[in-house]
């Protein structure tokens, strides 16, 4: 917990000695900057932070941070982080993953973490490609795109992570861009402040296999101030638009979190039985 005499941290306090392994120009550097800036802004103690990731380029992030964390297996970061946050509601739990990890193999967990409103921040670095394995299509790759696994073009329609998050029940949904780290920092900091499941889609182009920087920059627009942050349908509508491509906070409501419900329940039920009592055994 922050005290009056707590020193103000700087972003480098949250960086480990391990140099990031990403290609020069990778969007993930922008997200890394935004993440460490936001942590510094909130002045969290490094030992009270846990960054959980899956597998992929984005998921390498924890190793470059001086925090607790877990580089887990493909697609399961949210599930593991949910267990951690339930057991340790006192920790700042942040999940980072790519679009492949997050919405392909991890798709099921994404939907359920959203509906559970577990109090953590989920940053999905969306580059619409599988970078780690060198260029296959991801569920957010555009239809007809030619990739290493779809030489004749993608047959499927792309998924929209932000829209899905809103529909599934996430209580905070925002979209940022690695090419706009200032805005992304604000969004991540807001996500940290949010009580409940805070989803940040960080569009983070892969310079090596799917360089969409100029395409995104040309389509980027900020969500209008007039947008009602509590309006789900409006949020989905904005999220689904490809051109312009909207950035900013899409949806933000305050509803009871999974942790609050569990802690209320436990308060109510505390001490209502003992092990001795349960070991009397009856039909």
């Amino acid at each position, binding site marked *: 917990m922050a005290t009056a005499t707590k020193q103000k941290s700087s972003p480098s306090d949250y960086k480990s000695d391990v140099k990031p392994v990403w290609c020069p120009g990778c969007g993930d550097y922008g997200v890394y900057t935004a993440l460490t800036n936001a942590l510094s802004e909130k002045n969290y103690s490094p030992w009270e932070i846990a960054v959980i990731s899956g597998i992929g380029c984005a998921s390498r992030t924890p190793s470059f941070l001086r*925090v607790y964390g877990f580089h887990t297996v493909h697609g399961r970061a949210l599930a593991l982080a949910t*267990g951690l946050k339930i057991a340790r509601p006192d*920790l700042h739990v942040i999940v980072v993953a790519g679009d492949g990890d997050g919405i392909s193999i991890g798709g099921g967990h994404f939907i359920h973490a959203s509906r559970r409103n577990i109090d953590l921040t989920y940053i999905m670095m969306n580059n619409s490609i599988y970078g780690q394995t060198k260029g296959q299509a991801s569920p957010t790759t555009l239809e007809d795109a030619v990739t290493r696994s779809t030489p004749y073009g993608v047959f499927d329609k792309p998924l929209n992570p932000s829209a899905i998050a809103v529909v599934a029940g996430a209580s905070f949904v925002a979209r940022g861009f690695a090419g706009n780290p200032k805005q992304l920092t604000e969004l991540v900091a807001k996500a940290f402040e949010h009580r409940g499941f805070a989803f940040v889609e960080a569009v983070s182009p892969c310079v090596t296999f799917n360089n969409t920087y100029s395409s995104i920059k040309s389509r980027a627009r900020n969500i209008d101030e007039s947008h009602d942050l509590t309006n789900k349908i409006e949020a989905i509508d904005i999220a689904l638009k490809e051109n312009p491509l909207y950035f900013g906070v899409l949806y933000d409501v305050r509803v009871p979190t999974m942790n609050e419900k569990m802690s209320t329940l436990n308060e109510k039920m505390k001490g209502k039985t003992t092990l001795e009592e349960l070991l009397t055994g009856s039909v």
Partner: protein
Amino acid sequence: MGITKVVDIVVRIAGESGEGIITTGDLLTYAAAKQGLNISTFRTYPAEVTGGRSLFQVRLGTESHLSPWNSMDVLVAFDEEAFNSNIESMHEKGLVVYDPDLHSPSMKRGTSISLYGLPMTNISKEKVGIARTKNMVALGATANIHSIPYANIADVAQKRFKGMDKATVDKNVEAIRLGYEHAEKNSQIRFEFPKVKISPNKIFLTGNIAIALGAIAAGCRFFAGYPITPSTTILEYLSREFPKFGGNMFQTEDELAALSAAIGASYGGVKAMTATSGPGFSLMAETLDLASIAEIPVVIVDVQRAGPSTGMPTKTEQGDLNAALYQGHGDAPRIVLAPANVEDCFYLTIKAFNLAERLQMPAIMLSEQQLSDRAEMIDKPSLSRIKIEDRLKPNYEDVKKEGVYKRYVITEDGISPMSTPGDRHGIYISESLERLENATFSYEPETHKVMMEKRFRKLKKAENEPNMTRIYPTSNKKADIGVISWGPSEDAVIEAANKANKQGKNVSSLHILMLSPLPTKQIKPYLDSVDKFIVAELNQTGHLASLLAKTFLLESVPLRKTTGLPFTANEIFQRIMEVGP
């Protein structure tokens, strides 16, 4: 009216699912247990929610540790199909209770099986006025036949129906009374047990509940699970009781999430468990590996059922040992324990947590469908005598001197102190990749070799764990035949060996509770003490036999059963007689 004095009787109640057969069996069992009798139940019910056949069997006796059954002494057949499918397993001097309005049993010539016609359908419909009380009529009659005082059976039923409206309860109790009176007047046979001293220190418990209670006793305060037969009762029990202990549980979206969440909680310093059956356990292969390489304590309960794949969800089998020992790609060390009875379910769960904490690796508890809802009277556990182990924690003074916390520091026993998130000087990123001592990922050849050895070296800290085998020797120095088993077959093996020895054979038996690490120091002397040995297991390819063969380079005599039913003592006895000198 003949009174037959007995010390051991097997009662089977069978009929269409939905007719309340399990309730009848439960109440009969509980009333008998309250009288001081030992019990062992076996039940089978269809995989579907309605329809299909249901069966409840209870063995009542004065001996402790009863194996499921050899043959039935009493069959309560709710309908003709129940009679037809079960009559073959009847003891020749048994008693059949049937419904004369539904069928007339045709018996083989020369049989001395007694028949008692109980018009349970008619009594429930016409006299009670509620057809659904048919099972209570059967209960009353069966209780009478077994000399259970009416007051006892009515009392047990009243307690079970607490919460229902008074009119319904009264109708049910009336049905019991009518059945009881009908049997009093019409049954030619009555069974009577000797008066047994009621031990105040025994409690009535079923396998799955014992596991849940063992987890709470061990300090587990996190559970994540997905419903799957026959493990679901563990999830449901903890959903009700955990909040009272400050524990947290939730139903996950699938088994992949269940084990992942448990690993997350344990990483956070809270003892965690999940429970599943075969198909769910297969899904956990990758995350099991993760817990192993990241060195995270976690307990996984696999209540085995007949497989492979969907198999037979409500039937028993021991087909997951290979999966428990080996599943997950690569070499990932883990602990595997297998309870033999309800008491083991309680204590071995605690052991699973302790070993998981000590070795910082996943521990798998292999229970089984036949044990999941088996009821037994066990000695009430003495909580003050239970020892709890916690993971080794870092000495932060040393860490501060070193200047860096090395989560995976190489030690002689392979165990590295494990920090807890929140510890100021214990920061590290837990890894699924291979790593250096300070947890940074590494692909160096020497690193992988050293870390692999470290992870396996930890197993040595459990391989000499006491009481991980139970040996039943003969009075001779060497036995001609040994019978080795794992899981709930132990009682049937003991009974079979005793029977063979009474007939002049020289048979000993060994029961194994820990399969990984295998307690070789306890097993080797046993193998030296027998000329040949049978390995009895409920699976197709002899999982334990293979493990013993590769460990000790010894061949065994196989005894394998894959009908979805437990071993009977007779089946094992017959094999012993075939094999022996």
